[in-house]
């Protein structure tokens, strides 16, 4: 039987929110730990989203969401500089093709003004068309939000994780929380093989957050996931638009979003479907149909034969629940604001943090860490805290002289494994050192397999590097965690 591990604050869940909460906890003089159910961080909701850094003009004035989003957007460049994460302030255009859309443009402009968003402007259709000649003619008006940006959500999550770890946060992987209870003045957590004691607990368990909270408290809010599908288009399509484009449809429902990514590709989506019973991240025919149809209408010159992947995402929609007999029934309408539930002293649960959760992850983490540190009486700053996360070398970002010097010092940075994305052996070894234990973990950290060949050239080489570095046989390497071996099939 393992001994109990004592911490001031324990974070449950290694997604964006958990990793940023952990990062900010290390800025105080306290002992903290991050506990993650899976073999790696960034495997849940955080792994698939639109990669957009919002300005805050979509959020209702006076709400926590609006306040945090505006504040987070302003400091996003600084955050990404500290953490060595890609960030481009492309600006966005919300384009309308009729009176209903024009009203939305006007409303979001007013809302943004009230929230304090800088630089907003309502453009005429002609002005918008001049900025984005690839969009279907007939734009009636558009909202330009110059501060909208795009980032690399994976890089952001891993950066927060590595920064937290470097500043002393202890990490427990493969440890799903199965028991959570208050004993005396502390919390007792059973997670995988570990028993932890903590003065405060931050529950950032994503889709599981309500379940974890219900280990110790009656239900208040539950997550009912929606699904969303995306299409990824290869690099030649990246510059098709210059801004993030939100198309506002004239009918009720969702328009198309076009997102030029930080690695030069174009993302179309998200579509929106109810969650249903099918697997969580499964791509739906309806979603794909929606994306293809609206893309043809909104961006007629876009060649959809440049698609290299379709993927599905989940959105954690929070609903208040009420008791009916023995069952807990969700209200009809979801909760719009960020839901931070504090059912008992010393426990904070983030349940159903969706858009703009990526934008606000650092701000939410800072807020929660501050509250938890104050609660355990240890909110003095940690003098050794370093907010910066250095990034191992990225040969493709160097000029040829610097690249040459790097390879001279370490030949592994000379050997290109993924030709599509120009990823070298050295970077893959770095990814493994940084915590990748699966093919997807390597892919999300440094990119092999994200390109136009989708890993058909490099997967076996990444497999080999993983197996060697981890000291296991290739048959033990998985694509994405338990149950997903790359080799050998189901073992039947």
């Amino acid at each position, binding site marked *: 039987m393992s001994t109990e591990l004592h911490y001031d604050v324990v974070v449950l869940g290694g997604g964006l929110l958990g990793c940023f909460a952990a990062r900010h906890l290390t800025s105080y003089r306290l002992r903290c730990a991050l506990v993650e159910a899976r073999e790696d961080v960034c495997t849940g909701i955080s792994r698939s989203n639109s990669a957009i850094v919002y300005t805050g003009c979509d959020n209702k004035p006076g709400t926590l969401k609006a306040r945090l989003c505006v504040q987070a957007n302003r400091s996003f460049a600084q955050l990404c500089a500290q953490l060595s994460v890609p960030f481009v302030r492309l600006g966005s255009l919300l384009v309308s093709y009729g009176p209903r859309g024009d009203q939305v443009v006007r409303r979001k402009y007013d809302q943004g003004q009230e929230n304090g968003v800088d630089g907003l402007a309502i453009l005429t259709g002609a002005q918008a068309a001049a900025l984005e000649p690839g969009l279907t003619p007939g734009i009636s008006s558009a909202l330009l939000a110059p501060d909208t940006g795009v980032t690399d959500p994976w890089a952001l999550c891993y950066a927060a994780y590595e920064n937290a770890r470097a500043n002393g946060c202890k990490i427990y992987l493969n440890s799903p929380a199965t028991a959570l209870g208050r004993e005396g003045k502390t919390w007792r957590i059973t997670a995988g093989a570990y028993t932890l004691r903590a003065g405060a607990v931050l529950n950032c368990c994503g889709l599981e957050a309500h379940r974890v909270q219900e280990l110790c408290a009656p239900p208040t809010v539950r997550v009912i996931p929606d699904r969303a599908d995306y299409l990824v288009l290869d690099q030649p399509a990246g510059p098709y638009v210059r801004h993030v484009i939100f198309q506002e449809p004239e009918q009720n429902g969702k328009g198309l979003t076009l997102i030029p990514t930080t690695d030069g590709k174009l993302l179309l989506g998200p579509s929106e479907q109810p969650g249903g019973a099918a697997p969580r991240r499964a*791509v739906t025919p309806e979603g794909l149909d929606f994306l293809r149809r609206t893309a043809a209408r909104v961006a007629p010159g876009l060649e959809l034969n440049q698609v290299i992947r379709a993927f599905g995402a989940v959105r954690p929609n929070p609903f208040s629940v009420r008791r009916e007999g023995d069952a807990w029934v969700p209200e009809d309408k979801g909760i719009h604001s960020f839901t931070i539930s504090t059912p008992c002293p010393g426990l904070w649960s983030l349940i159903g943090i969706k858009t703009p959760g990526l934008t606000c992850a650092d701000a939410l983490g800072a807020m929660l860490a501050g509250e938890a540190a104050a609660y355990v009486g240890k909110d003095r700053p940690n003098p050794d805290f370093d907010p910066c996360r250095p990034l191992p070398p990225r040969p493709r970002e160097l000029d040829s002289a610097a690249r040459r010097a790097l*390879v001279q010092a370490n*030949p592994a940075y*000379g050997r290109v494994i993924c030709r*599509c994305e120009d990823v070298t052996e050295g970077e893959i070894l770095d990814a493994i050192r940084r915590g990748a234990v699966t093919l997807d973990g390597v892919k999300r950290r440094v990119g092999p397999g994200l390109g136009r060949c989708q890993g058909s050239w490099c997967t076996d080489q990444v497999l080999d590097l993983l197996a060697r570095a981890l000291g296991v046989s290739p048959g033990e390497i998985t694509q994405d965690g338990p149950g997903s071996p790359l080799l050998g099939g*189901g073992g039947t």
Partner: protein
Amino acid sequence: MTWDVLVVGAGAAGMAAALSAREAGAASVLLADRSARLGGVLPQCLHTGFGMGIFRQELTGADYAARWAAMVGAAPIALRLDTTVLSLTPDRRALLSGRSGVEELSFHALVLAAGCREIPIGALALPGTRPAGIFTAGQAQRMVNLQGLSLGRRIVILGSGDVGLIMARQFALTGCSVEAVVEQRNHCGGLLRNYHQCIEAYGIPLLTRTTVSCIHGEGRICGVTLRQLDSGAEYVQPCDTLVTALGMIPERELLRPLGEALPPWVFLCGNCRSIHRTVDTVSRQGEAAGRDAAGWALRSREAG
């Protein structure tokens, strides 16, 4: 120094181009390939059917490559293996990267013999999950034949291109169950010879006018929905591995920074020019490209 001819890709086309460039008078020829060995995709082709046109013999791909590799080895051709050509510039410079270093060099003429890549399953944007156990046919061939890896036991092959057919036979020979080869056209996509030798001879069902319409499996793939295109009927075919033979795309991304029109000093050959069905025509096209490149280099050198 300025190389007379830089050959990118040391498969069938590139090896032939390098040799013929030398024969046509190029004083310096550099042959670069990202693999550690010569031959491109040929060494992983352990089946016969190569070389009737050039050697008047039925060889395996590996043997065919070995013959050419021996000729390249005996000729004064500089090799950069395990080396990737990262970029080309309009002023005829190339940036190469390998474990031995990063090298920037200039050249008079370029032979692009970079082959092709397989269309990945992602390009189909299929509904369903994204589980482990999906491979392209060429990738499967490399992993099985060169690395001795076992990919799965119960296999569906999507697309009836030649590599898919060859792999169907290979899976059958190693005791796997090939459940079906699925083809949306009303006929086999590969050579008739391969249909007879690889599919028919092993009793593997070829399902024409059929496609995969959904992928199932949370961790590892556990099945695919097959749709009969004419009737619209669908059923789930269990499998633990899906191999795709969806076709090839010429690998020409290196040329992108050079603009729309091909500069006169670029000579394309092999599968990066157009997709070939037999290797002999690839080698012949490589020889022609090498000659032309050498000619251009000599004129370019004279013009100073």
